[in-house]
């Protein structure tokens, strides 16, 4: 896992109260929702709120495909790197 991916994994754990999961348990290429960590749409909202606060990112469903952005920690990290405000 790259340091950027670890930062995103850490953010997910904090924002949806998954303290029992450690960063190294997360596979950056596995799905975040349903099959992976079992997160739901309110969690997605929570994570998007955190992205808004930390990186000034405003996620919209028509930004690519939200499903893709949230498909894995790796995909979310790429999205953040490409869209964060300086």
């Amino acid at each position, binding site marked *: 896992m790259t340091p950027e991916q670890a930062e995103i994994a850490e953010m997910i754990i904090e924002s*949806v*109260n*998954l*303290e*029992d*999961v450690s960063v190294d*348990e997360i596979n950056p290429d596995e799905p975040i929702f*349903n*099959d*992976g*960590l*079992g*997160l*739901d*749409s*309110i969690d*997605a*909202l*929570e994570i*998007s*709120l955190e992205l*808004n606060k930390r990186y000034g990112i*405003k*996620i*919209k*469903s*028509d930004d690519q495909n*939200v499903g893709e952005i949230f498909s894995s920690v790796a995909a979310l990290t790429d999205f953040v790197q490409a869209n964060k405000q300086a």
Partner: protein
Amino acid sequence: MKGLFSDDPFVLLEDGRYSRHQIVSAAFHLSRALPEAPVVMNLYTQRHEFLVLLLAVAFKDGIIVLPPNTAENTLNGLMDAIDSRHKFIAGARTERWNFEDETVARIDVKHLLSSGLVDKAQLSPLLRKLPVAQIWLYTSGSTGQAKKVVKTWSQMMRLAAKAISRFGFDRTESPRCVVATVPSQHMFGLETTIFWPLFSRLKVWAGRPMFAEDIKAALDFVKPPVWLVSAPLHLKKLTQFDTEWPSYNESEDGLKVLSATAPLDVALAKTVGTKMHARVFEVFGSTETASIASRETLVSDEWRLYDHNCLEEDKNSGTYDVIMQDLDERHRLQDTIRTVSADRFRVLGRQSDLIKVAGKRASMTDLNRILQAVPGIEDGVFWRSEASERLQAFVVSNLSSQEIRQALSKSMDVVFLPRPLHFVKRIPRNEMGKIPFQALLELESQTREKVG
């Protein structure tokens, strides 16, 4: 039913609009391709797609099944329990689930909507079938034993008429548009995005926006006056974004927010009202009853029953029944309430075993049973602290938390998954096998110390 031939804009999309007449016509085209009396699980999220399928199935004397959640086991369990040769699932992106190919119907709703208007003479005989057509909904997202609630179109239409009358959705001045974050598969969403608009002058936004920016974009697009239909947890998150919500002119009838599924607290209602420049309303109801009462949260904490509804106390249990005199229906309420006058009441709380997370209802007993049944879990118990809306759980197990979550997500709605999951050496059961409330409080404070 004559409103269903209207050619006025009804469902709004970013790149178009559909009238009621177009949607009913598309349903007519679809119905010709359906078998007699099909039983169809409707997983569509776009309101017009949902509605075309809903109508088409009713035209063929069929039944529409609306699942309480989208967990694969729930959907398969419901389908397995249906005794019909003509049962199938339809929705967008059904490849998300591992359904067997033959159970999924591929429907090109966009094509159906452009297949031409059907005249009144052909549609009328089909519309006459609507009142007896059935919709199956389910209470509780927690287990495979969710209780089935059967509503006919006739019931839904008459229930809708009460809300339409309360909120004045039938008034002829500029009709409002509904923008909703709730799914049409649940009673609150079914009412607000389908039945209220279909049988009033309301318009409806096709999408189900979730993120703050999506909701803002939808509000910008549809222009006031508009109703934003959502739920407390979602509204709470929305107010924390730095989104610039459309600011409506003081004098114009701009945004109204409608919330349900759990009581909205006054502080949150105030924040929503201020940040979103909106008046905030709530409806009170359940899957069994649909909405039965409303209030404007910052004006009064008392709920006012819709017309021709009344409450009757069962003196033995202290619970109340809502009686809909005009519909010949009576339902037991799950909440503890106190009547204030013939048509007004206050809600005091929920009966203890039932909990709600993100608008989904579950029984703690059921959730604990599922948790304890996971192979590799020796003992476990769910717990809801004062501090969080979400559930936590204590478990005795050598499994990893991911393994436990994955096992649980097969059998319960993901909103109930523990956040967080605490591993403990033993669950403090007493000699009767029960777990005293105080013992759980202590367990929680111990685990918090460990984390901190």
